[in-house]
């Protein structure tokens, strides 16, 4: 069975089951007097049926084949997950440490390569970008960004 189809099929099956279970707790109504739970219930059941079809199809096509096809993650995936991690950290720290520090650190960390060759360029770009964000969004557009640690 294809690894990708197996994982995604199970994910949709779980989502469908959760959606159906949850929607029953709202008023479902009837086909002539529909309540807020009717459409989510139909969609949950559809998700379950379609995910079972996907799993069944994938199993049928690969029956007897031992090899499990893996999902393609190229060599650059570390860069992807480090970017996601940096974004998550920036999201959680934005209101705590403020926009100036967050913007500066976000740009520095996103621009840094593994070999740290580009530190100077990253810091310079980060300073310019932070100044740009402050001028355009805060000074000109009056956006109420969180000030955090640097209160100016």
């Amino acid at each position, binding site marked *: 069975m294809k690894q*990708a*189809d197996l*994982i*995604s099929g199970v994910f*949709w099956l779980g*989502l469908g089951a959760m*959606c159906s279970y*949850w*929607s029953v707790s*709202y*008023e479902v109504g009837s*086909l*002539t*007097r*529909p309540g*807020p*739970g*009717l*459409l*989510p219930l139909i*969609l*949950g059941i*559809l*998700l379950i049926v*379609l*995910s079972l*079809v*996907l799993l069944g*199809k994938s199993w049928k096509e690969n029956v007897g084949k031992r090899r499990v096809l893996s*999902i*393609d*993650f*190229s060599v*650059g*995936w570390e*860069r*992807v997950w480090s*970017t*996601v991690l940096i*974004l*998550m950290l*920036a*999201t*959680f720290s*934005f*209101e705590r440490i403020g926009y100036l520090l967050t*913007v500066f650190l*976000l*740009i520095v960390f996103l*621009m840094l*390569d593994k070999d740290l060759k*580009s530190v100077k*360029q990253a810091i310079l*770009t980060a300073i310019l*970008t932070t100044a740009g*964000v402050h001028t355009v*969004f805060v000074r000109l557009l009056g*956006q*109420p*960004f969180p000030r955090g640690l640097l209160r100016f």
Partner: protein
Amino acid sequence: MGFLDNIALGFGVAFSPPNLLFCFIGVVVGTLIGVLPGIGPVATISLLLPATFGMDPTASIIMLAGVYYGAMYGGSTTSILVNIPGEAASIITCLDGYRMARQGRAGPALGMSAFGSFIGGTASIMGLMLLAPVLAKAALKFGPPEYFALMFFGLTMVTYLCRGSVIKGLLMAVAGLAVATVGQDPISGSTRFTMGSITLMDGLGLVPVAMGVFGIGEILTNLESGIKQEVFSARIGSLFPSLQDWVRCKWPIVRGSLIGFFLGILPGAGTVIPTFIAYAVEKRLSRHPEKFGTGVIEGVASPETANNAATGGSMVTLLSLGIPANIVMAVLLGAFVIHGIQPGPLLISKHPALFWGTIASMYVGNMMLLILNVPMIGVWVRLLKIPYRILFPLVVLFCFIGVYSLNNNVNDVLIMVIFGIFGYLMPKFGYEGAPFLMALVLGPMMEIAFRQSLLYGDSLIFFRRPISGAFLIFSVLLLIAPLWSRFAHRRNVLEQVE
């Protein structure tokens, strides 16, 4: 008011100084994001939405529409000079455009692309002017069952035209509809799937989700594949195509305009499919099909004309029926709704200045693009030389700040990041984002139409009314078509074996 009076009204609106300025900003931003690989019109329009909150609705729609067709112009520059499509709709232009650049004919390729785009865009606006009012008049007879069936048909088309498995397309569409039910029920007002979160009471916002799936997701994919930009700008030369080039391209441009416009109207076709079909048609009709892919100018003119013609076509269903034909139109629909305007059959009578002004501005914008693009090629080339490792952090920051500015709520940024991961993983598992986002936008409207239809007291109402019945039957046929073709193929194989 007669047709000519409407056109005069439209041009009056489009030529007002603020609207001219916003049209200019829209087309410049559109060309810019079209030129830069990895940033598309969906993410850009989503990002610009908050900036339009305080603007006049007409000016904001003019600007956002400008981003859309401007991106189609810009996409070709990257395809021709870097061999990376700036836009998905310019993928096919790489084949002959980059070859032409390597042969020292980058100038005529860029020039023909700009002129073809202008002609295609202009032709599609004419079509839009003629077709949209007729369709809007017909749509006045539509009730909730017809609207539900039409949206269902649109969603089915998007699913059907997805690459790969139809089951996966359907799963994405159903998941999009399910996600659209998060928040307040549009009829009773009770909350669903909110888990007590105040942020989720308003539902999952279109902008954070679109920015996540199509902005952050795209950036993560590019980071993984590692974009390498080799700008081929040594010999751009004269941008004006020769007389011989024009003779060779006249029919491809005409056919590209027609294919682009009519396929653009079709829900789900977007701007990508028309370019592939236009290219395939030209190759089929050519006396030298073997030369396609080696640097023939028809291979640039035809898809570039088609993608711009498709932009006008896709506006037809949005403006006249209120149904988006593709994802960009879905986001534009969101922009209309944010400004308190419901596109559809009543748009022409209720907001004639907006309707005709937007159409006229597209003509003005196309003119601006032609004038801008020819002398500004040098600027775009310099921009293309910015390394991606400098460009992508700025784009990420732009997304971050833009999404936060929507409601000054950090949870929106979190939603964007989560859907960014979703958008990155989707292609790895063989899924496409278009059905998901279309379903997310259409979801609330579909639910209202669905429940209002059922309140007629007849659960088979959709099949009892001819228009809705026809749309639903077409949808079912589309869904079973892959099964039928597989069955027919299997029968052929069995017959051959016997």
